[in-house]
């Protein structure tokens, strides 16, 4: 099965009904209904109740739905879980994860609530957010801390604050953290997702940053405005040329496989398993059905 695309994950403030009721139509791959930083401290209860009602009624179409809850060390974290976990959104995003113990504590509550609600085969996965220096230091262990974790993400604003530095447009201060988190994610086959780009009006800045994070291994980026979706998709979508090449690689691979040949060459360049894997990824991003190619070859 093709992996779900997570090029664009749009944050939507949890206390904003106008935006939540339209969350499924912005064309992003996922929405992040936010109960944490986008909600004022004195509206946490209102947002939680609103998101709970919305999850039950709004059609999000094929957009993945993730809820960002508050950290368990706040007065809101447990209440968030009590109300949201029973509804099993596609994922829960857990902020400010610093240690394996954080994950264990959190997952204990998640499992308890699921069991109390007789949810025997929970479908909901977990995204852990790394937003502190300590979290970055422990990220390899965190990534392996629970099998329900399927993505790991960096929170740039909080991380720079924690490091006592200013976030600069070149992102140089969080570059090490980004790369370390990517490695940890890749090591455990998790999607690695990037932080937001705060200046909604700077389309070129967003494009540059997205091109960069794509190069170093991120699968997608969190967004704060629907207007950012197109740029991010353009960056992550393969070019026509890439698709054409990958199509050729994959059809040759199928042909050769039938003939029992594992490694072959196209235009004098060796094609081995990693090249085929890369071609498959490109074709999946281009929404091309691999089975169709297999049929046309054979």
């Amino acid at each position, binding site marked *: 099965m093709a992996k779900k695309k997570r090029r664009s994950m749009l944050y939507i403030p949890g206390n904003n009904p106008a935006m939540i*009721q*339209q969350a499924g*139509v*912005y*064309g992003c791959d996922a929405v992040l209904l936010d109960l944490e930083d986008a909600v004022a401290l004195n509206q946490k209860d209102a947002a939680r109740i609103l998101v709970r009602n919305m999850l039950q009624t*709004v*059609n999000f179409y094929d957009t993945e739905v993730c809820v960002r809850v508050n950290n368990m060390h706040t007065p809101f974290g447990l209440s968030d879980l009590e109300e949201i976990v029973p509804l099993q959104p596609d994922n829960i995003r857990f902020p400010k994860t610093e240690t394996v113990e954080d994950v264990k504590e959190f997952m204990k509550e998640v499992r308890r609530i699921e069991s109390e609600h007789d949810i025997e085969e929970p479908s909901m996965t977990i995204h852990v957010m790394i937003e502190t220096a300590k979290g970055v230091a422990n990220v390899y262990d965190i990534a392996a801390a629970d099998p329900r974790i399927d993505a790991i993400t960096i929170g740039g604003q909080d991380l720079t604050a924690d490091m006592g530095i200013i976030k600069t447009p070149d992102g140089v201060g969080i570059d090490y953290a980004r790369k370390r988190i990517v490695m940890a994610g890749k090591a455990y086959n998790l999607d690695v997702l990037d932080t937001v780009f705060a200046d909604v009006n700077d389309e070129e800045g967003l494009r540059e940053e997205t091109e960069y994070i794509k190069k170093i291994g991120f699968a997608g980026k969190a967004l704060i*405005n*629907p*207007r950012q979706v*197109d740029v991010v998709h353009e960056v992550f979508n393969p070019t026509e040329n890439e698709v054409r090449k990958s199509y050729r690689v994959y059809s040759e691979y199928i042909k050769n496989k039938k003939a029992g040949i594992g490694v072959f060459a196209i235009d004098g360049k060796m094609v081995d398993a990693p090249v085929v894997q890369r071609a498959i990824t490109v074709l999946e991003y281009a*929404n091309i059905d691999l089975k169709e190619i297999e049929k046309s070859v054979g």
Partner: protein
Amino acid sequence: MKNAIGVEIPEYIEGLGKLEPFQGVWKSIIEDEVPVTNISRTLKAKKPHTSKLCDTLEDAIKKCNPFDGMTVTFHHHLRGGDHVLMATIKILDQLGIKDITLASSSLTSAHDGLVPYVEKGMITKIFTSGIRGQLGEIISKGKLKYPAIIHSHGGRVRDFLTGRIKPDLSVLAAAAADEEGNATGAHGPSAFGSMGYADIDARYSKNVIIVTDNLVEYPCVPCTIRQHFIDFVVKVDSIGDATKIASGTTRITKSPMDLRIAKIAASVIEHSGLFKNGMSFQVGAGGASLAVAKFLREDMKRKDIKGSFMIGGVTSYGVDMLNEGLFHSIFDVQSFDAAVSTSVLNNPNHIEITGDQYANANNCGSMTNKLDVVVLGALEVDVDFNVNVITGASGEIRGASGGHSDTASGASLTVIVCPSFRGRLPIVQDRVHTVVTPGESVDAIVTERGVCVNPSKPNLAAALKKAGVKVVDIRDLKKEVEEMTGLPAEKKLGDKIVALVEYRDGTIIDVIYNVENLS
């Protein structure tokens, strides 16, 4: 009698005469003989070297011998900033003139001041393409003596030619004019760009007064309005509020929902088969409609497409596309912002056209007939693809027909952009409250929740599906939206007809009844 879309149309209305029911978009024009009375121009005479200049608007009006029951006409190029229409009505009222037929190409928020004149019966009939604000409310409540006639921009020209509108006095504001009445909207402190809708008034009215705040040395160039039609010229201090006439440049909306709808609409155009070199194009000036131009502009650059012409209401955004070479020319009947005036004046490929050339159904081919793609808005749409742009949620008159039905009838691809609901009100209905543009001339309705394609265009639906555009059945969309919003209560209507919607061929496509409650 029932018209072709099943609306009961009275055969006769006192004060307005016999009515013809709508038969279909092209039926009366193609199959019937070209109609009725044809009005000839008024014969006028003037000795050499006599002056047309009058000291005041009142003097000029008096010289035109106003009378009870007369028809007074205006253009709406000053939009929300117009002072000339109200000034004229006040003078006529002071002169004791009654029972006036008002025929302005449209009425805007600048004309709420008409309310008392309608209420006291000084104005008894209105012909126009749009009515808004408080004026719309009182007409909706039945305060105008005879039903208002809502025509299209093209239909207005036809109404002059058939004598349905018989102009006795036309008071036409100009941004620059000379002593003989050569006039333009393209320059001056109150510049408003094209003056296209005023052309028919100038040609056919028995008395024409040019009013300007910018009397220039003879001759005024360019001369959109020509001196041989003009009886009198008045210099005034101000023709209106320049900031509301035309200001700055038009910006593309930042509303995520409008942008999303526009993006989908652009992909509909891209995959319609019409997106190629030589494409002609029109968009509206607001919201999602104008935003389509933004995405189309990007697509045209990416695919190296060069269009033919743009028409219609023109914004600075269209001018930018002309200057970038994305289109060959602009045919401009109405300009929406200040930046357009400069282009009208300086760019030979930015051509001012008349309402007649733009959209009249009864000439040898208006420019709307050459349109490939038009993108239009809607207040409501229905499962038969009919579009309402005139009445609001309570059934009150609050919008404009404008060039909606004109462009839809001519364009190869008519795209309607609208959200599937607005503030809990579902936009897709079983039947729109008022049909302005018949579904027969609508090809696709684009909402944020998918594209509905008219069943008469199966090839378009197939092409869009193939390209990955989400195509939905309009009845399914209606059901989906109603599940979100709930079903609104039925409108409470009276039994008095307060307005008639005239299709561009002069037939009646819908009637508007009075409403008791306005929200």
